[in-house]
């Protein structure tokens, strides 16, 4: 394979519209930190005060449309007494941004706001000391408004810009600078409009998919349509380059990683489509129909996650015992715009622009793929369509980097729809078995949960196809059976949680998808609790109230029920023979922190099996909510996405390959099926912020299942609740 840079014709017509700014165009072959401190202890890493009395806040979290870049500025502005119009953040870049870890697990506010708050408070303290000297007044007589420091009872004042004006603080963040009391907040806790929205509606916003680099080629990957079993990477037996004769494109290859590059994008698309490759693909998957059965029969690595009391004794003595199986599918991140990246890889350095949610993690992976030292690789973040977890961002980024290394030119790589759907790191399938018991008074006395799933793969398809990473590398991490989301909100004296780790080889690539596994956990768990309420002849809300003492769980539970106007009655008490029946359900759940509760109202057409979710109410207690408007939007999005995942979304595969490769094969909820949504925030000004991007989905998923029971008297043991699955269950 040639690595000639002269493949690009000079002055080609494909270089169009740069919007990424000067840094990119003036790209230096040697990435350097540009003199900026990235030491998290140094105040200058986090903040710069400019002569015009504005500030730049360096934020290590990605804007994903969740409003993090707005909310973290609110936190900084609060402590500094600056207005939103006086602050800006800059694009994430390994040469510029502090490493706050990836933008995962609702981390931006949860983990990010204490760091930003601490740095801003330190800056304020330092600025006030400077002002005190300048104005000849003690610090306790100074006040700040919009970055103007004034002396009480005097007319003297000075601006932050005058005091520091683009010079460095040269201070450590001590963590000892006083922070404001929540009761004095003026910016935090308000619904400041998001700063990214105006450009997004006008077309001025540059998404990753519109970014360009001088001299770049367009690339596409050529892979089998749909991934096959993890551990048995498909082998390219032959590549017939004559099949794209007549298209101005070139084939590049490293191991079984095959791609095409072309000056014109449409040529790359056509070449990828037309190129004849003979693949050897082993039939090593269970197929969708046998998936859960096979997972259940595997030899698993078992771990006792939690145990309290003695469940077996308690079950034997209980008045009511119920078991509930829950089967959850593989679901796709299915980023709405397929992932895209641009890489310019040279002999001794690389610059990469990517939709990654973790620029530092991506850089570490590229080190291995490109065989370049970490400090020679610069990764910049550019927002694309939301992935809601670890989708194909890193795979696409690695593919761009490999193509660039092979061609010696900058390459813009975009996945096609079938690449994105077919080669995703899916949210893993799950099998759960919940058992719960209540005494004659309706007190939960025992709770047991067994969960089966495999680990996250953690290795991208590109790296495995090239052979840079062994094909049978199994990831070591995954969300396990979660005590936070499984029964712990109830006061059960006897508890047992067991994780059964299924070997990942022979299954699909897995990774975290928004609220990982939680929808599956609560689908089984909260149906079991609901069934106990039913067996105890109690209303589902009141039964939960009686079994929960934690005021924060009770807070969200009651908030959701009250918003929905919940009138107590026993579930399934209105089941009828009508063709269309209505039901309502309630449930609680979370992800890693925060508290979620939801109420679902649904209709079931018993003739067609179609479920229509008419209204979802979702309540979150995430401690101090920095921007309620953003969190309401997050709750609304979670509710609609949960409706989609519970009714529609399921990756299908035969024994060879994934077969759901586009929006027809993997349908998501549409406008005409979208529920009305009511987001509810339980604001706790004095509690730590704990994240609100994924904490009501578990509750909403189970509320939908419980509403189905209320409408029909039937418990579903598998989702999504497709018409075929519903009809089968109703006939059982």
């Amino acid at each position: 394979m040639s690595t000639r840079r002269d493949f690009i014709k000079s002055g080609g017509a494909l270089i169009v519209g740069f919007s990424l700014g000067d840094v990119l165009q003036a790209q230096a072959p040697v990435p350097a930190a540009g003199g900026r401190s990235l030491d998290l202890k140094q105040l200058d890493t986090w903040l710069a005060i400019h002569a015009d009395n504005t500030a730049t806040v360096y934020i290590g979290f990605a804007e994903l449309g969740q409003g993090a870049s707005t909310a973290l500025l609110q936190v900084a502005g609060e402590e500094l007494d600056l207005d939103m119009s006086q602050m800006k953040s800059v694009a994430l870049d390994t040469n510029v941004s502090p490493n706050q870890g990836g933008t995962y697990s609702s981390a931006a506010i949860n983990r990010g706001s204490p760091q930003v708050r601490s740095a801003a408070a330190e800056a304020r303290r330092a600025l006030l000391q400077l002002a005190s000297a300048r104005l000849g007044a003690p610090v306790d007589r100074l006040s700040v408004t919009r970055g103007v420091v004034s002396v009480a009872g005097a007319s003297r004042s000075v601006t932050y810009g005058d005091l520091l004006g683009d010079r460095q603080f040269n201070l450590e963040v001590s963590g000892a600078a006083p922070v404001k009391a929540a009761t004095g907040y003026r910016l935090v806790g308000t619904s400041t409009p998001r700063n990214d929205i105006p450009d997004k509606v006008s077309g001025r916003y540059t998404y990753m998919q519109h970014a360009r680099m001088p001299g770049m080629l367009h690339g596409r990957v050529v892979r089998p349509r749909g991934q096959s079993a993890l551990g048995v990477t498909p082998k390219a037996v032959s590549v017939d380059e004559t099949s794209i004769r007549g298209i101005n494109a070139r084939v590049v290859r490293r191991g079984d990683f095959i791609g095409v590059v072309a000056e014109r994008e449409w040529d790359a698309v056509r070449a990828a489509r037309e190129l004849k490759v003979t693949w050897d693909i082993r039939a090593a998957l269970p197929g969708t129909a046998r998936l859960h059965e096979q997972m259940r029969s595997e030899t698993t690595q078992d771990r006792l996650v939690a145990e309290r009391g003695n469940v077996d004794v308690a079950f034997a003595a209980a008045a009511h015992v119920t078991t509930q199986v829950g089967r959850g599918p593989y679901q796709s991140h299915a980023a709405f715009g397929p992932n895209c990246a641009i890489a310019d890889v040279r002999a001794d350095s690389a610059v990469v622009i990517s939709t990654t949610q973790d620029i530092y993690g991506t850089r570490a992976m590229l080190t291995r793929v490109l065989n370049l030292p970490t400090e020679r690789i610069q990764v910049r973040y550019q927002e694309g369509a939301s992935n809601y977890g670890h989708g194909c961002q890193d795979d696409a980024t690695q593919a761009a980097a490999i193509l660039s290394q092979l061609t010696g030119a900058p390459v813009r790589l975009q996945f096609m729809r079938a690449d994105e759907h077919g080669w995703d790191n899916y949210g893993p399938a799950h099998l759960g078995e919940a058992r719960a018991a209540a005494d004659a008074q309706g007190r939960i006395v025992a709770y047991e949960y067994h969960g089966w799933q495999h680990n996250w793969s953690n290795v991208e398809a590109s790296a495995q196809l090239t052979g840079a990473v062994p094909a049978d590398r199994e990831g070591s991490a995954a969300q396990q059976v979660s005590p936070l989301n499984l029964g712990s909100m109830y006061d059960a004296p006897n508890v047992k949680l067991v994780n059964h780790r299924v070997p990942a080889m022979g299954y699909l690539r897995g990774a975290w998808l928004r609220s990982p596994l939680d929808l599956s956990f609560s689908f089984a768990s909260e149906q079991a609790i609901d069934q106990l309420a039913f067996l105890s002849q109690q209303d589902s809300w009141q039964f939960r109230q009686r079994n929960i003492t934690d005021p924060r769980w009770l807070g969200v539970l009651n908030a959701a029920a009250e918003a929905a106007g919940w009138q107590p009655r026993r579930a399934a008490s209105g089941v009828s023979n009508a063709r269309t029946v209505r039901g309502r359900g309630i449930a609680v759940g979370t992800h890693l922190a925060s508290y979620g509760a939801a109420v679902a109202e649904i209709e079931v057409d018993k003739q067609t099996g179609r479920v229509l979710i008419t209204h979802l109410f979702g309540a979150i207690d995430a401690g101090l909510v920095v921007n309620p408007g953003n969190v309401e939007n997050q709750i609304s999005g979670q509710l609609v996405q949960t409706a989609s995942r519970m009714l529609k979304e399921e990756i299908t595969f035969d024994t060879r390959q994934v077969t759901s490769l586009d929006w027809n094969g993997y349908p998501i909820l549409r406008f005409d099926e979208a529920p009305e949504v009511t987001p509810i925030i339980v604001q706790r000004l004095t509690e730590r912020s704990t994240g609100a991007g994924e904490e009501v989905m578990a509750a909403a998923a189970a509320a939908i299942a419980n509403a189905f029971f209320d409408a029909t008297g039937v418990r579903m043991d598998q989702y999504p609740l497709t018409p075929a699955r519903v009809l089968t269950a109703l006939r059982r």
Partner: protein
Amino acid sequence: MPVTLILNGQQRVVTSDPDTPLLYVLTDELALQGPRFGCGLGQCGSCSVLVNDVEIRSCQTPLATVGGKTVTTLEGLPAWYAAKRKLSTAPALHPIQQALIDEQALQCGYCFNGMIIKAAELLAKNPSPTEPQIRTAMSGHLCRCGTYPRIIKAIRRAAAAMTVRG
């Protein structure tokens, strides 16, 4: 052979092959940021533009078929609206764009090119659509973030604003 089209009110001559899907001409040759690739199959709506005032999927539309026609993208929507409404000057934003800001309707926003184009087409045909009419008209446009409820509100808000303005 070059193809001529009327793009956002201006005559443009483009040199892409006539069988190239319009989307690649708009994004690569003309450097527009409104239309964007979503599926390449006409299933999702992220590449939508108006051709002679009708919403089409530019990923499925060969360049040759729009020769001599009027193509309006997200970037040209305020001027297109002004022309339709016979306003002397184009507003900075089409009312649906303003309504989406007012409702803070976006999350990642990637699908909103298509949402805005389709909603503008709907409002031009039906100035005060009912909620069922909105849902039906918009149903060919998908959103991964689940913003449908706020888009419905925004379309109703835009319709009200346009009615007041007359």
